C-alpha cells in the first residue's frame, strides 16, 4: 500500500471478492436439489506484488466446479444397462400377461381341453353332442393360438412405436449436446459460472442420452464432446448433431443414421433394449408359437385323414392346412390357425372302414397329447411349459440385471455426489467465512476512512 487511495481500492477488491464468494455459496445452496449440478467454488488468486514488494491484495477471481469425469463415464455406462434392462422387463411383463392368463384361459387350458374332448369322444364316438364339443374345443384352441400370437405381436408393435419415440428423444438430446458444445467451446477456460453451468447441463444430457442408447464420447482440446454409438456411428461432433432416422421395412422399423442402417448395431440403452426385445426375444416367442401351431396342425390333420367320419366317409383336414411361406418357415401358422370343418359328423373318430361307433381314430387323436413331436422332443404341453420357462427366465434375467445395475448406479451416483454434490453444512460454514472476511475488510475501510479524516483535520478544513 502506497497511498490511502490505493488502500481503499485494495479493500474494495477484497469486499467484492467476499461478496463473490457469498454469491457462489448462494448458487450452491439454491441448487442443493438440482440433479446434475456440480458444486462450485469461488477461486481467488493473490494479487501481484507491487514495485515496493508489497502484496496488492486479491487478484484473479474465478469459479471452479467439482467434477469427476471418470465417475461420469461409469455412471453413463450403468445408465445404458439400466435403460436396456428396464425396457426389456417392461415388454416381457406384457408378454407374461398373455401367456400366463388365469382361469385356464391360456394356451395350456385350450390344449388340454382339445385333447380331452377327443378322449371324451372315444368313450362315445357316435354321440353328436360330444362331436360338437370336439369342434368347439378345436375352434377354441385355434382362437387361443390366434389370440396369443396377435397379442404378443401387439406388444412387438408397441415396441416399434416406442423405438420411434426413443429415436426422437435421442435426437433432441444430441441436438442439445451439440448446442452446449458450442457454448462450452466459446466459454472454455473463462472460469465463469456460465462455463460451469454449460458443462453441468451437457453432462446431464449425456446421462439422459446414455439411458437411451449405448454411447462413447471423448473430449476435444476445445472442451467439446464427440459422441458416437458404442459401435461407432457418429451422433455429435462439435456443434453439429446427426439425427437418427426410423424407416419402415415391411412391418418393423429400421434405425438409420446418415443413411446407414444401424438397427443391429445398437446394443444397449432403452433403444437397445427395445430392439432386443422386438427382434430377438418376442420374435423368438412368436416363432415358438408358430412352430407349435404348425406341428399340431399337420399331425392332427394327418391322423384325422386316416379315419372315417360319422357317415363312413374318409376324414378330411381337421384344421385348415398350413402352407409354409418359405422352406423351413412356419411364419403365420399360429396367426391363421382355423378349423377346416364345422360339421360334427365330419370328425373322423372311427378307423377306416369301421362304423360310427368305433373309436380307434379318436383314441389316437386324443393320444397326440403324449406324442413327443414338438421341438426338443417335447409334448404339446411341455412345449408350452418350455415357452413359459423361457419367458420367465428372460424376464428374471432382465429384472436381476436391472436391480444390480440400479444398486451399482446408486453407489456411483453417491460417489459422484460425494465429490460434486452440495452439503449445506459446508455452505453454512462458507457463509460464515465470507461474512467474517467481509466484516474484516469493511473494518479496514473504516480505519482508512479515519486516517484520511485525520489528515483532513490537520489541514484545517
Amino acid at each position, binding site marked *: 500500500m502506497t497511498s490511502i487511495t490505493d488502500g481503499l481500492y485494495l479493500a474494495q477488491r477484497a469486499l467484492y471478492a467476499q461478496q463473490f464468494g457469498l454469491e457462489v455459496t448462494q448458487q450452491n445452496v439454491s441448487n442443493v436439489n438440482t440433479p446434475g449440478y456440480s458444486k462450485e467454488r469461488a477461486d481467488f488468486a493473490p494479487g501481484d506484488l507491487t514495485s515496493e514488494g508489497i502484496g496488492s491484495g486479491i487478484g484473479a477471481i474465478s469459479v471452479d466446479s467439482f467434477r469427476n469425469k471418470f465417475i461420469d463415464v461409469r455412471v453413463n455406462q450403468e445408465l445404458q444397462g439400466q435403460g436396456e434392462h428396464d425396457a426389456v422387463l417392461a415388454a416381457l411383463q406384457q408378454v407374461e400377461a398373455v401367456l400366463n392368463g388365469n382361469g385356464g384361459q391360456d394356451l395350456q387350458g385350450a390344449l388340454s381341453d382339445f385333447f380331452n374332448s377327443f*378322449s371324451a369322444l372315444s368313450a362315445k364316438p357316435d354321440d353328436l353332442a360330444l362331436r360338437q364339443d370336439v369342434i368347439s374345443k378345436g375352434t377354441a384352441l385355434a382362437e387361443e393360438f390366434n389370440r396369443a400370437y396377435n397379442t404378443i405381436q401387439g406388444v412387438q408393435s408397441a415396441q416399434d412405436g416406442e423405438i420411434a419415440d426413443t429415436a426422437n428423444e435421442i435426437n433432441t438430446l444430441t441436438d442439445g449436446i451439440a448446442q452446449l458444445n458450442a457454448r462450452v467451446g466459446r466459454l472454455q477456460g473463462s472460469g465463469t459460472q456460465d462455463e460451469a453451468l454449460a458443462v453441468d447441463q451437457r453432462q446431464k444430457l449425456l446421462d439422459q442420452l446414455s439411458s437411451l442408447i449405448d454411447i462413447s464420447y471423448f473430449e476435444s482440446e476445445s472442451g467439446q464432446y464427440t459422441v458416437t454409438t458404442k459401435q461407432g456411428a457418429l451422433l455429435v461432433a462439435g456443434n453439429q448433431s446427426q439425427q437418427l432416422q426410423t424407416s419402415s421395412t415391411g412391418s418393423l422399423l429400421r434405425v438409420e443414421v446418415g443413411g446407414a442402417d444401424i438397427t443391429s448395431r445398437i446394443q444397449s440403452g432403452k433403444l437397445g433394449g427395445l430392439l432386443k426385445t422386438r427382434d430377438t426375444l418376442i420374435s423368438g416367442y412368436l416363432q415358438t408359437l408358430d412352430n407349435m401351431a404348425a406341428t399340431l396342425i399337420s399331425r392332427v390333420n394327418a391322423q384325422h385323414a386316416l379315419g372315417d367320419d360319422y357317415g363312413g366317409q374318409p376324414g378330411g383336414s381337421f384344421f385348415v392346412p398350413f402352407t409354409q411361406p418359405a422352406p423351413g418357415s412356419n411364419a403365420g401358422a399360429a396367426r391363421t390357425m382355423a378349423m377346416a370343418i364345422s360339421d360334427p359328423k365330419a370328425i373322423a373318430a372311427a378307423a377306416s372302414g369301421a362304423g360310427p361307433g368305433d373309436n380307434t381314430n379318436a383314441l389316437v387323436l386324443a393320444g397326440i397329447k403324449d406324442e413327443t413331436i414338438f421341438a426338443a422332443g417335447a409334448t404339446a404341453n411341455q412345449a408350452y411349459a418350455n415357452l413359459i420357462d423361457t419367458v420367465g427366465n428372460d424376464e428374471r434375467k432382465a429384472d436381476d440385471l436391472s436391480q444390480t445395475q440400479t444398486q451399482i448406479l446408486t453407489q456411483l451416483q453417491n460417489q459422484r455426489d460425494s465429490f460434486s454434490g452440495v452439503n449445506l453444512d459446508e455452505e453454512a460454514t462458507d457463509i460464515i467465512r465470507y461474512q467474517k472476511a467481509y466484516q474484516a475488510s469493511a473494518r479496514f475501510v473504516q480505519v482508512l476512512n479515519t486516517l484520511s479524516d485525520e489528515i483532513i483535520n490537520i489541514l484545517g478544513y
Partner: protein
Amino acid sequence: MRVTDSISYRNFLTGLDALNSQMETANQQISTGKKLLSLKDSPSGSAEVVKLRAQLSGLDQYQSNNDSGTAYLSMTDTALNSLNNILTSIFTTGSGVASDTSTAAIRTSTAAEVRSLRDHVLSLANTEVGGHYIFAGSQTLSTPFTIAGDTVTYHGDPAVNSIEVAEGVRVNQNVPGSTAFQGAFNTINALLTALDGNDTAAIQAALGQFSSALTGISQIRAQVGSALGRLADLKSALSSEKTSLTARQSQIEDANQAEAVTKLTQTQTAIQASLKAQTVIQQYNLFDFLA
C-alpha cells in the same frame, strides 16, 4: 466419505423403495394367496405348474372316461345277467318236455313259450341307450339283430372299443353282439327246430348245448366284471394321484399366509423406523444455528 444432502436423500429413498416393494409383494401374496406372482418369481416353478395343470386336467378326463366306461359295462353286465336268466328259463322249460312222455301238442305250446322268451333275448341284444346300440360293435346306430322267421341275423361287427382311463391304460368298453348273443341264438334255434319237429333226441341234444352257451356267457360276464373292478381300482388310484398332484401344485404356487403376514408386519415396522430415522437426520443443519 463426504456426505451431501442428495446422498442422504437418495439412500433414504432407495431403502424406502425396497421396503415398499417388499410390502407390496407380501400384500399381494396375502390377497391372491399365490406365491408365484409373476413368471420371473420362478420360471421353472411356473413351467411345472403348467405341466401339473395339464396333468390334472388329463386326470379329470380319465375320471370321466372311467365313469362312462363303468356305466357302459354295468349296462352290459345287466343285459348279460338277464340273458343268463332267460337262457336258464328256456333250458328249464325245454327240459320239461324232453322226455318221451311229452306230446307234440305240449311241445308246440312249449315252442311258443320259448319263442316269446327268445324275443325277450332279442330285445336284450338290441339294448339301446340314447339311440346307441351297445351290442353292435361299431355299427352303433343301426339295430344289430333282426329276425326273419326264426332266423336271427347280426348286422353289427366284432369291433371292440377300448377307452383310456389312465395314462397308457386302456380298458375294453363293449362286448360285440356276435360274441355275447350269437351262441345263445344258435342254441335257442336248435331247440326250437327240435321242438317244432317233435324230435325227442334232437331236443335232448339241443338242451345239451345250453351248458356250453351258459358257460360262454359267464366267461364274458367274468371279463366284464373284472373290467369293472379294474375301473373301480383305477378310480381310487386316480383320485389319490389327483390329491398328490394338487398338493404339489399348491406347494409350488400357493403362498404361506402366516409367513406372508409376518413379513408384512416386519416390513411395516422397518418402514416406520426408516421414516423416523430420516426425520431425525434431516432435522438440523448448520443454518439452523446461525443467528
